């Protein structure tokens, strides 16, 4: 039972926090998001070269530092705090998490660590909802090649990405866990239609249409039809990191709101002196603190057996989805009209928190998953009476 960071982890946290405070400007990052490039490549280079965070959680044999869930947590929380739009969780935690569980991806992972490779995970589809194992896109063998047919929706991080990590079904029904295969493809691919757009949280994504797209045999990573065994733990790792990112966002939002409430005066006094608003902010604080606990729960259970791991990450997602909504909405409410604009940081954070509420599945999804993983009660112990 220990909640302290190691000296190395503290250093990682502090150096990243300092760098972001010095160098990551909210307004400039939004400008970049609105530009054709969609991001600041120099930020990513600094992540790789100056800060080493891209490899922090990846194995040493690919150039990483061999860190684990706690490192991912520390990084994601700081990125959330500064509202970094560059897609660390999608690319490194989710993309990297899948790849490091599959043979043959060593070179790609080296590129991830170096910052030269960026992975866009294309898991969702027009008819999948938020369910990653609902895969209707198919892959069939054609001689030595594979032919992919289907569509992917809201694939995050596309203008930044060099590679697409796609699921396709090689057997089974749409929602079967078996029969899902994982393909790693270059983002520039003949026959692939890409529709790019911005997201509400100032990131980028794309819809993909795969109309009999031919790819070579080695695009398949790992065993045919067994992709879920790599995806499931990586998705739980992404859930834990997303929780940490949300915690970072919410800490900033709460601090901003409390500060605003002390400055903003109406009826001759700071609005933070009104008891109803004080109690609202206390409730926001309680949501943030519960999210912090949920972050620890998810992070520190990633090494547990799969059901316990999934239960902890789902508990965390339910908690942060609720908190993200409550904290975000009330931060806007307490900022009044200013909270509705992009004049202050709060509007940008609110949009990211709104995206997080649904990303990797909304609360109802995860509450169901949690319930399904909760052991049924033993019959009442009446024998003792």
């Amino acid at each position, binding site marked *: 039972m220990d909640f302290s960071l190691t000296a190395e982890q503290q250093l990682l946290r502090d150096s990243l926090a300092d760098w972001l405070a010095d160098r990551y400007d909210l307004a400039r990052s939004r400008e970049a998001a609105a530009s054709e490039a969609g991001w600041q490549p120099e930020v990513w280079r600094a992540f790789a070269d100056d800060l080493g965070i891209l490899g922090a959680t990846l194995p040493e044999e690919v150039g990483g530092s061999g860190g684990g869930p706690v490192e991912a947590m520390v990084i994601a929380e700081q990125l959330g705090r500064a509202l970094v739009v560059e897609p660390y969780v999608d690319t490194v935690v989710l993309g990297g998490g899948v790849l490091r569980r599959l043979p043959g991806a060593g070179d790609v992972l080296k590129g991830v660590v170096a910052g030269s490779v960026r992975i866009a995970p294309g898991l*969702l589809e*027009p008819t999948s909802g938020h*369910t990653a194992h609902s895969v209707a896109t198919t892959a069939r063998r054609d001689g030595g090649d594979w032919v992919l047919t289907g569509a992917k929706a809201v694939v995050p991080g596309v203008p930044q990405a060099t590679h697409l990590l796609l699921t396709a079904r090689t057997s089974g029904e749409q929602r079967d866990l078996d029969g899902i295969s994982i393909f790693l493809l270059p983002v520039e691919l003949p026959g692939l239609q890409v529709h790019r757009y911005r997201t509400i*949280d100032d990131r980028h*994504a794309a819809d993909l249409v795969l109309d009999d797209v031919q790819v070579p045999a080695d695009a398949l990573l790992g065993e045919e039809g067994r992709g879920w065994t790599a995806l499931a733990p990586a998705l739980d790792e992404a859930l834990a990191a997303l929780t940490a990112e949300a915690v970072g966002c919410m800490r900033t939002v709460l601090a901003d709101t409390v500060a605003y409430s002390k400055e903003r005066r109406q*009826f001759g006094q700071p609005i933070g002196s009104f008891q109803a608003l004080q109690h609202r902010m206390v409730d926001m604080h309680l949501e943030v603190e519960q999210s912090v606990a949920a972050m620890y729960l998810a992070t520190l259970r990633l090494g547990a057996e799969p059901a316990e791991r999934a239960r902890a990450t789902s508990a965390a997602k339910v908690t942060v989805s609720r908190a993200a909504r409550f904290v975000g*909405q009330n931060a806007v409410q307490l900022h009044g*009209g200013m909270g*509705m*604009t992009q004049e202050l940081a709060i509007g940008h954070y609110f949009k990211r928190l709104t995206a997080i509420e649904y990303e990797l599945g909304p609360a109802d999804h995860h509450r169901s998953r949690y319930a399904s993983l909760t052991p049924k009660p033993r019959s009442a112990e009446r024998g003792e009476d």
Partner: protein
Amino acid sequence: MDLEWSAADLAFRDEVRAFLDERLTPDLRRAGRLMTSVYADHEASMRWQAILHERGWAAPAWPVEYGGCDWTVTQHYLFSRESILAGAPPLSPMGISMVAHVLIEFGTPEQKEFFLPRILTGEVFFCQGYSEPEAGSDLAALSMTAEADGDDLVCTGSKIWTTHAGEANWMFCLVRTSRAAKKQQGITFLLIDMSSPGIEVRPLVMTSGEQIQNQEFFDHVRVPKANVVGEIDDGWTVAKYLLEFERGGSAAAPKLQIMADEVARAAAGQPGPDGRPLLESPAFAAKLADARIRIDVLEVLEFRVLSAAAGGRNPGTASSMLKILGTELSQTLTELLLEAAGPRGRAYQPHATRPGGPLAGFAPPADGYVSGEEWQAVAPLRYFNDRAGTIYAGSNEIQRNILAKAALGL
């Protein structure tokens, strides 16, 4: 005691329905359906106003002598209700539903003669200048000054949260003409020609990316004293009179019913967690049923206010209650629509919505591509914009303060 409309009311409703069936064109309905806030696409809204004006229904609540309709309270309600249920784009309330009532009550004959017909035709289009950066919930703290100088008032200061400041050629606003012990005193209700020298309009970029509201800066703007409505220094009386109209919008339930139906249609076509339609997912179905139940109940509350008004009775504190319940329900429904949108709800594609522009730093895709369906593009923007519901027109916290005092005597 009953919940039925009279035969005469039903006949009137059918007349309105027939008119809406005939004149509400698909593109006007579409403008209504793709709204991301309480404001429709300006052009569509004005086009609909012209059609209504042609029929004599642009401003039914006005006295007949100024172009209104000799309708009963119930007929007014039914007209609003049917317009909403048919998906008509709402008209801007600032002219027809707000300042016009002030002019009719307090205006000079010249003011009435000039403004009222032009408001009807759309030639005069008003925006509202109430809030200031330091005067939001505490409206009486406003500080934009208007100093008398001959026949003019010279205005200096700033107004904020002004919808349609770009489209409007007139603003009605509250300005401070003198400093008194009580901050509600010394305020004047003034009409300002937006083409006057010294006015700068700065659009505010909302969370949704849209420029719905604006801030205006007034630098020694000269306004003829003839544009004062009511007495100088007595604007608070005028403002209080007007506040009742702003808050009274008593056909919230039909709008919410439309929104609930939209959510149901949306969720019927999207997959839920177990692969069946989201609408059949128990958790989502329960949330939607709960919202619908609240709407059914709100509708009865509105009917009670209507019934009281029809009987000439004062609805008391109902307006604060309806404001709280209506706005909170609306926010619930925008949450459900966003949830129904699924992963697509994260796509930012304002080109598929109305009004859709102007948009700071947004270039629509060359091929007009929309990820998913149009409502999925509407969902997030509506969610963001609808947060305003609990903030404006007296925040819900202020409404609760009012109710604590007025309804509970605390």
